[in-house]
């Protein structure tokens, strides 16, 4: 398969499979969560029902522009994932992801609604909290493989985790923020109850909300792809191992979600920054000794 064909196949597969896998993942997540709480929980396909239902609802909006931003949010999340699975440049991917998130935040700001605005503010704070670690993760890969290109990373001679244990832990730490799991579900929670009502998504309903949900599915799969990167190398069986680890990590996130109270923003930013500044820093320091 030449490079172009590979890219086309990968992007097509991502476009089609990611929402399916993402929705399913969400369904399994809800089911496991329910079981952890001693309940039966919804059907596995529930997230799909939810989204289909949202598409059936009446269209309402608080201004003429918020839907546009949300559409852009979805588009750029999808583009991020496409870049990723096409083996693109890690930094490019991170910046595109940031762009997408900014669209979401701006959408919330645009409504000028109290809880949406505070949600946006907190979302921003969370971005500020995780951004350093995400960048450090990319840099970590670069230090190991000498390239930001994912296609070269996965073709590397050994799994990155061997060189990046600290960065991996740091990444999993902020993954909790990205997946909007307790203790860091500050700006909006998948669960109904919280001090910000629905935070960021307060003013979105119907199809718009459905788009956000779908975007989250895409995003989650892409994030799992990130975890995958740590365990992928040229060995033929490494994909199986890596996917397995992704499952374990996701389960871990569910476990964490069910184990913690939602903390306040101070703790969220303090700990994420400390994680980045210690785990990331030390790991990079060690790598430099190896590299230079």
């Amino acid at each position, binding site marked *: 398969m030449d490079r172009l064909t590979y890219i086309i196949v990968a992007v097509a597969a991502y476009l089609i499979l990611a929402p399916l896998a993402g929705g399913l993942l969400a369904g399994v997540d809800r089911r*496991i969560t*329910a*079981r*952890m*709480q*001693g*309940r*039966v*929980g919804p059907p596995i396909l529930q997230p799909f029902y939810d989204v289909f239902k949202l598409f059936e609802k009446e269209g309402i909006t608080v201004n003429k522009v918020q839907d546009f931003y949300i559409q852009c949010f979805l588009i750029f999340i999808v583009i991020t994932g496409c870049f990723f699975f096409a083996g693109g440049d890690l930094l490019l991917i991170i910046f595109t992801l940031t762009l997408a998130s900014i669209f979401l935040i701006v959408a919330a700001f645009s409504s000028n609604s109290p809880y949406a605005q505070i949600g946006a503010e907190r979302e921003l704070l969370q971005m500020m909290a995780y951004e350093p670690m995400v960048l450090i993760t990319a840099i970590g890969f670069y230090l190991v493989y000498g390239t930001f290109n994912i296609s070269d990373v996965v073709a590397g001679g050994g799994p990155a985790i061997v060189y990046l244990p600290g960065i991996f832990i740091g990444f999993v730490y902020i993954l909790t923020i990205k997946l909007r799991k307790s203790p860091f579900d500050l700006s909006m929670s998948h669960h109904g109850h919280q001090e910000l009502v629905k935070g960021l998504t307060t003013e979105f309903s119907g199809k718009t909300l459905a788009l956000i949900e779908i975007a989250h599915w895409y995003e989650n799969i892409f994030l799992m792809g990130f975890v995958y990167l740590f365990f992928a190398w040229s060995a033929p069986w490494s994909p199986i191992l890596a996917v397995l680890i992704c499952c374990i990590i996701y389960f871990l996130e569910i*476990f964490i979600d*069910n*184990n*913690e109270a939602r903390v306040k923003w101070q703790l969220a930013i303090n700990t994420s920054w400390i994680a980045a500044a210690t785990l990331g820093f030390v790991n990079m320091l060690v790598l430099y000794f190896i590299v230079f």
Partner: protein
Amino acid sequence: MGLFSIGNMIIRSLFNKPATLMYPVIPRVYEEKTRGHINVDIEACVLCGICSKKCPTHAILVDRKKKEWSIARMQCIQCNCCVEYCPVNCLSMANTYTSPSTEKITDAYAKAAPEPAAKPVPEAAAPVMDAAVDVEPTV
């Protein structure tokens, strides 16, 4: 450090049977004492009207002319007061509740009528949910 303090409990729950009672797939069995809805043995009723007077929400109406005893189901608070005051003990508290309904239903029972005039609770079109099972009729 107390980070995963509830870990044990949730892992146990994950692998054990959930606590869910699975209503309505499995119908709930109520306690004998459960206060559900009021039944009247209309033939025994002497239409004295005490129950109507004592009922704190005025749910019961006794019409001597029509020889009819009626209860506004959506008004009864299951306090059991009427049962306690009925001089002939023709009222009783059954342990199943009145079904939810799209209208405020009133059940009327006429005395000495050949057939009891109790209209069945209007059962709306069967619920669309897979798991739906009919709740046992209460009247």
